[in-house]
């Protein structure tokens, strides 16, 4: 068997049992990266030599009888907006040229403490603003199932790397769907935890009331394992929630007998592709066969989610991204005439069109005369969306929907019209605005051979219920075991 087909927990178990060494496994991942990443472009940097050294050290510790953490010797990739001390953190933006993170993000620190090896950084939409990884200043990432299509975004590099067997798991970040949507489009599993579950310390801020770090992997058990490692309170993030997620992996096998699965008709309305709808409906039927009770629920404000999100998220982004001014780190425009010239030209040269557009939109909705009409209005609608979920969760334990309205779209298909691109987040944004946990797992393929994702959502901090439901479905199907075809070798020049 090709070792790169092992999932994260299988690799960890194989290493504990002596079936494979960390060095062998890490070398297999690196060889896979060398072979396929020139085509897919999932990574912006690979730490090959250091990862192998860390693997040898992990094997030595194991041989010496040291217990080691839950992820001892297992390689994991990290999105380019998460800090790892001494490494670049670029957010796939020119404006962070030359920036080296002075410290570890809490999530990275906890991965290391559990014994994981950081294999490299993955590509993303610039500052996580996008749904296709096409706004990256580092070139596009391609979907392993069809290299002429997008991997989704913004964590497209993380999802593509996991799907292409370059690494068993990766951290992504999710503000409006940036973990779940690429996971769906690449046929892997992705979890956005409850807002506050994972510390945002060391994550480059996009929209602070929405951003969450979460795992992408090839099995639900891997997501549970990773959330146990990276989740929990952190004094360095004042919005981090009390308590720690425990027993998630241990509770996976309890089944879903009697679990109430809510199906909101608003998520199956116009705009959702027929094949996607059929796959998701079939997977809900599968959950019923496994003992779940399927109930209809209403989330009436769903048609307003995208509008609400693109006001709230851009408003927060316009404030957060004010820090990129060419003074303290990153890019600085050459020969500034004066300080305003330095700010304006640095930002003009360093930021890409989508980031500029969102800063403009966010600045506008917060500006004098428009604040109440746009920003305050959106915050009120956000309240109504939270209430929708509270009411729905009175009738059910998880809510099942498509993760994305369509399977992976073609490169360039949606770049000309920003609004069309924004609407690809239509199924994921509601959970972000409500702050609730949500997961995407593979639930089928289109006739063209593209993966489809099932999204499940649960009450705040009920990741245990969410993972148990997703695991039960996954164990009854084999979508997650399908492997994308090996790519033809890259032609010279790259992308």
């Amino acid at each position, binding site marked *: 068997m090709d070792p790169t087909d092992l999932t994260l927990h299988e690799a960890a178990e194989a290493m504990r049992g002596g079936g494979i060494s960390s060095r062998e496994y890490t070398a297999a991942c690196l060889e896979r990266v060398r072979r396929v990443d020139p085509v897919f472009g999932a990574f912006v940097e690979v730490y090959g030599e250091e990862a192998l050294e860390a693997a040898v050290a992990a094997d030595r510790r194991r041989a010496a009888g040291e217990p080691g953490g839950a992820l001892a010797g297992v390689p994991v990739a990290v999105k380019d907006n998460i800090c790892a001390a001494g490494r670049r953190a670029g957010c796939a933006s020119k404006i962070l040229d*030359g*920036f*080296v993170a*002075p410290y570890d993000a809490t999530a990275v620190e906890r991965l290391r403490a559990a014994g994981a090896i950081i294999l490299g950084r993955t590509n993303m939409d610039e500052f996580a603003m996008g749904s296709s990884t096409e706004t990256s200043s580092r070139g596009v990432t391609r979907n392993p199932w069809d290299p002429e299509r997008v991997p989704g975004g913004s964590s497209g590099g993380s999802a593509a790397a996991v799907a292409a067997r370059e690494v068993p798991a990766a951290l992504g970040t999710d503000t409006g769907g940036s973990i779940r949507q690429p996971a769906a489009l690449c046929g892997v599993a992705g979890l956005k935890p409850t807002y*506050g579950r994972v510390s945002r310390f060391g994550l480059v801020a996009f929209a602070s*009331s929405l951003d969450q770090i979460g795992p992408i992997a090839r099995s639900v058990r891997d997501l549970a394992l990773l959330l146990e490692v990276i989740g929990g309170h952190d*004094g360095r993030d004042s*919005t981090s*929630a009390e308590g720690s997620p425990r027993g998630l992996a241990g509770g996976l096998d309890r089944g879903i007998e009697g679990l109430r699965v809510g199906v909101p008709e608003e998520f199956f309305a116009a705009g959702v592709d027929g094949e996607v709808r059929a796959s998701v409906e079939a997977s809900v039927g599968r959950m019923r066969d496994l003992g779940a009770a399927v109930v209809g629920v209403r989330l009436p404000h769903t*048609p*307003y989610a*995208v*509008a*609400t999100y*693109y*006001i709230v998220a851009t408003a927060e982004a*316009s404030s957060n991204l*004010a820090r990129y*001014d060419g003074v*303290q*780190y*990153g*890019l600085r425009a050459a020969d500034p*005439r*004066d*300080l305003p*010239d*330095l*700010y*304006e*030209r640095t*930002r*003009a040269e360093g*930021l890409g*069109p989508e980031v*500029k*557009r969102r*800063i*403009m*939109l966010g*600045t*506008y909705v917060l*500006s004098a005369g428009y604040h109440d*009409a*746009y920003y*305050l*209005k*959106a*915050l*009120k*609608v*956000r*309240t*109504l969306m*939270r209430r929708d979920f509270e009411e729905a969760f009175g009738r059910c334990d998880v809510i099942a929907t498509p993760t994305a309205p369509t399977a992976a779209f073609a490169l360039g298909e949606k770049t000309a019209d*920003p*609004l069309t691109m*924004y609407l690809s987040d239509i199924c994921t944004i509601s959970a972000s605005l409500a*702050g609730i946990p949500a997961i995407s797992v593979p639930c089928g393929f289109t006739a063209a051979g593209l993966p489809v994702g099932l999204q499940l959502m649960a009450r*705040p901090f009920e990741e245990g219920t969410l993972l148990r439901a997703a695991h039960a479905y996954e164990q009854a199907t084999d979508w997650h075991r399908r492997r994308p075809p090996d790519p033809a070798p890259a032609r010279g020049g790259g992308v």
Partner: protein
Amino acid sequence: MTIGRDEVEHVARLARLRLTDEERERFTAQLAAILDYVRKLNEIDTAGVEPTAHVLPLRNVTRPDEVRPSLEREGVLRLAPRADDGFIMVPRVIE
């Protein structure tokens, strides 16, 4: 209520973004389309609804007032595009 070129230029100044003529044209059209779309929120009656700025119950977070190590000064200065003699250098702001 739509957005015109002058307003786009004003917002760009607020956001410290220098736009090219081409960008100003493109953003004017795109922002107008996006704002037109988001105005669908006006269909909803939000009278008496409290705004949600944050989903968690907010409370003040304090810690003991103790000195802790911070980032090492030389390391921070090394990240600056221009630094000299312990300072980050910028164009003169006072004549």
